[in-house]
């Protein structure tokens, strides 16, 4: 009996000890989210990422904040600009090129140094002031073009800065989402230790060191970095926005440029989340209980028309006919397996910049054929058009099959479409050269997809006549005084609601003019393990990883 009781007591004690020992481990078990990116390399980590908006998504908005940010909290509403490290801003009533930004108090960089007006000035000068020690040409390209009118920054007091633009520009707060705040104190420490033959070499060495051990104010902190292989981020428990303190302890980002490799990594449990899984594997992904997220992205897959003298697209009936002749739902449900949203403009209904176009873009073949006949074309007199496109490319979705689909569709509306297929980087470079350049190779439309996050990228650079090459991407030399006037009005309207209304008018006018052949919006497909919860995929290029939990 005594032995039995002793044994029993020993067992209970052992159980209690085991439970007690296990409890803290369970409570403190680290949660890790592993993500397979489509990028072939970790986007730059030094504050201004490369690789477009995928770069901003993974190494920009995670580790850094900008003065303004994007609302990524809803999957249904359009993602709009909200305060970030600036709490409020205002344009000067007397001089519309001067803006005052009030900064968020109590924010610190990951290294503990304070975020203040000096830090803002320092970060503006890293890309705009060529004689500043921190000026880095490699960060200029991806940044300066996204805030084309910003020229300088001045400290008013510790928590106030004045930003100056080259012309009155109400888009500035939107553009500033692209300027991420890196820690001047951390960089300075690297600069002082850096070795180099001259100041330029020292600057470069300091930025290289900073990229390996970065410091921003964002919800995630850098904890490990192997170039081209992995970036490890840990949660910033002291993040200033308590609602956005990450719910996962650690996030590991892995470059996996090959779609099948990413999908295999997900299905074999090596990662928890993949961007853009292989389309052919979607049924298996769903069948195995993995979750698939999609949402309309601010992205447009278009044909951008030539509008120079002699272009067949100068006739609005032809432009409208092309827009009415494409069965976009058929393209979505057939070729693309549901992974697109039919485009009826740059912005879809519900977006503040959509407006009320009178020309309804839809599939109406008889109406398209009628328009073409009115323009003088028919089954025996087809209109020859030539489109420059690429075999692949960032945001291009499936350019060849999609263009072949359009080729067949438009043939029924008396178009004879010829494709000029070239390599992606070449197509991208040609975009800037314009239709008059020999690189257009006789094409009268180009097929370069574009991001539509802000008004400049979505509308202005294509529609304003002064944006024609070599200045920007008005490839087809659109020259419409009405558009020019509308752009000017939108840029000089500083009340946000009125500015949005002006942009909506501009967008509606561009749809009514059938300025492009609008085909598709990408949906940013991503697949993930059932263990991943709390995902909100907004109508944006970005996503808030802070909301994600691991079960």
């Amino acid at each position, binding site marked *: 009996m005594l032995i039995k009781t002793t044994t029993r007591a020993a067992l209970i004690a052992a159980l209690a000890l085991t439970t007690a020992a296990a409890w803290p481990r369970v409570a403190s078990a680290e949660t890790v989210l592993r993500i397979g990116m489509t990028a072939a390399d970790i986007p730059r980590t030094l504050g201004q990422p490369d690789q477009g908006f995928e770069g901003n998504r993974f190494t920009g908005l995670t580790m850094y904040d900008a003065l303004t940010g994007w609302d990524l909290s809803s999957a249904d509403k359009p993602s709009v600009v909200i305060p970030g490290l600036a709490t409020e801003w205002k344009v000067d009533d007397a001089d519309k090129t001067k803006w005052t930004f009030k900064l968020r108090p109590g924010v610190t960089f990951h290294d503990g140094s304070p975020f203040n007006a000096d830090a803002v000035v320092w970060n503006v000068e890293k890309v705009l002031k060529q004689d500043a020690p921190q000026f880095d040409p490699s960060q200029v*390209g991806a940044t300066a073009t996204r805030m084309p009118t910003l020229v300088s920054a001045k400290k008013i007091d510790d928590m106030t800065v004045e930003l100056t633009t080259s012309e009155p520009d109400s888009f500035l707060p939107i553009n500033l989402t692209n300027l991420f705040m890196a820690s001047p104190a951390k960089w300075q420490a690297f600069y002082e230790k850096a070795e180099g033959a001259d100041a330029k070499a020292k600057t470069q060495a300091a930025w290289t060191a900073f990229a390996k051990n970065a410091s921003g104010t964002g919800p995630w902190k850098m904890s490990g970095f192997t*170039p081209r*292989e992995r970036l490890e981020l840990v949660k910033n428990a002291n993040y200033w926005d308590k609602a956005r303190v990450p719910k996962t302890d650690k996030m590991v980002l*892995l470059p996996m440029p090959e779609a099948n490799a990413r999908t*295999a990594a997900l*299905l074999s449990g090596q990662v928890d989340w993949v961007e853009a899984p292989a389309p052919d594997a979607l049924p298996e992904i769903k069948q195995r209980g993995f979750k698939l997220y999609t949402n309309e992205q601010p992205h447009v897959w278009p044909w951008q028309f030539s509008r120079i003298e002699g272009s067949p697209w100068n006739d609005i009936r032809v432009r409208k006919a092309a827009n009415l002749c494409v069965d976009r739902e058929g393209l979505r449900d057939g070729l693309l397996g549901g992974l697109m949203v039919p485009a009826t403009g740059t912005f879809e209904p519900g977006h503040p910049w959509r407006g009320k176009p009178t020309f309804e873009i839809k599939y109406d073949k008889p109406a398209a054929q009628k328009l073409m006949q009115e323009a003088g074309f028919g089954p025996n007199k087809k209109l020859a058009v030539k489109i420059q496109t690429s075999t692949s490319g960032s945001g291009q979705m499936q350019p060849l099959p999609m263009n072949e689909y359009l080729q067949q569709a438009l043939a029924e509306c008396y178009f004879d479409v010829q494709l000029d297929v070239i390599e992606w980087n070449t197509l991208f470079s040609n975009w*800037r050269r314009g239709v008059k350049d020999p690189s257009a190779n006789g094409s009268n439309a180009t097929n370069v997809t574009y991001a539509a996050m802000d008004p400049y990228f979505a509308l202005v650079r294509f529609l304003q006549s002064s944006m024609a090459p070599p200045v920007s991407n008005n490839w087809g030399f659109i020259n419409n005084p009405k558009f020019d006037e509308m752009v000017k009005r939108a840029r000089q309207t500083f009340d946000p609601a009125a500015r949005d209304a002006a942009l909506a008018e501009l967008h509606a006018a561009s749809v009514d003019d059938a300025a492009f052949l609008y085909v598709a919006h990408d949906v940013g497909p991503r697949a993930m393990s059932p263990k991943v919860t709390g995902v909100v995929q907004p109508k944006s290029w970005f996503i808030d990883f802070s909301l994600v939990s691991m079960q």
Partner: protein
Amino acid sequence: MLAYIARRIVYVIPIVISVALVCFLLVHITPGDPLVAVLPADASQELAAQLRAAYGFDRPLPVQFGLWLLRALHGDLGNSIATGRPVLAEVMRAVGNTVTLAIAAAIIGFTMGILLGLIAGYFRETWIDKVATSFAIAGVSVPHYWLGMVLVIIFSVQLNWLPAVGAGPGGSAAWAWDWAHLQYLVLPAITTSVIPMGIVTRTVRALTGDILSQDFVEALRAKGLHETGVFRHVIKNAAPTALAVMGLQLGYMLGGSILIETVFSWPGSGFLLNSAIFQRDLPLLQGTILILALFFVFLNLLVDIAQAAIDPRIKRG
């Protein structure tokens, strides 16, 4: 022998300069903007000119080549346009990973190739020969990226035995020679090994068959030499050619495979080249091609010297 080695080294110098020139010109004459990685298509003309000057792309090509070659001779291959990191460090890290993969693949491919080749050669025109030859033909015929994907589907996705991608649980920087890491090497190494395995099998089979039909083998057997002794003579006679073929195959493997390394996200030189090509990162592209070409040149040199050591007749040639 020393004179032979010196002569071979002198031959290498013009080859190296030509390789440097060709790889510089090839990446510069391709269409597109060299600053596409850091310069968006809507950048202003002023900004484009400013960056072009900052990166030295505004200078004439011969000047750019001269400066690049001069720096390369001092061990400086410049910095990557896309990442800003030194090219040499990037390339050497990637090459190290490719060497790991190539050696693993060589061990599998050469061992299997020699074994199958000898068996096929010894049992020529029998069913054993046909089976071994079928393996060899399959090895050189199967697209290796396809094989890689099939292996991943079977062993990673369906059976969950081996990892699908990557170079270890903590990446190649934390590489260790234990099973936790080696399991990441298995599938890419098998995939990489199939072509060398096929080529070595066919070479060794042909050599073994030829040597066995030569008069001296008859003479050895007539003198009563045991078959093991004959086998030793066969191997010794087949070795120089087989070694040359294996050297070339190792060279190809050390060059990395863009397809295999991309399929397995193996961070080697092929993966690096893929990234450099798609980002149009000229300094990285030039540096990677140059280092890989130099590897190949020096590997050939080593093979030539090894051949000469094994077969003294080659020195006279």
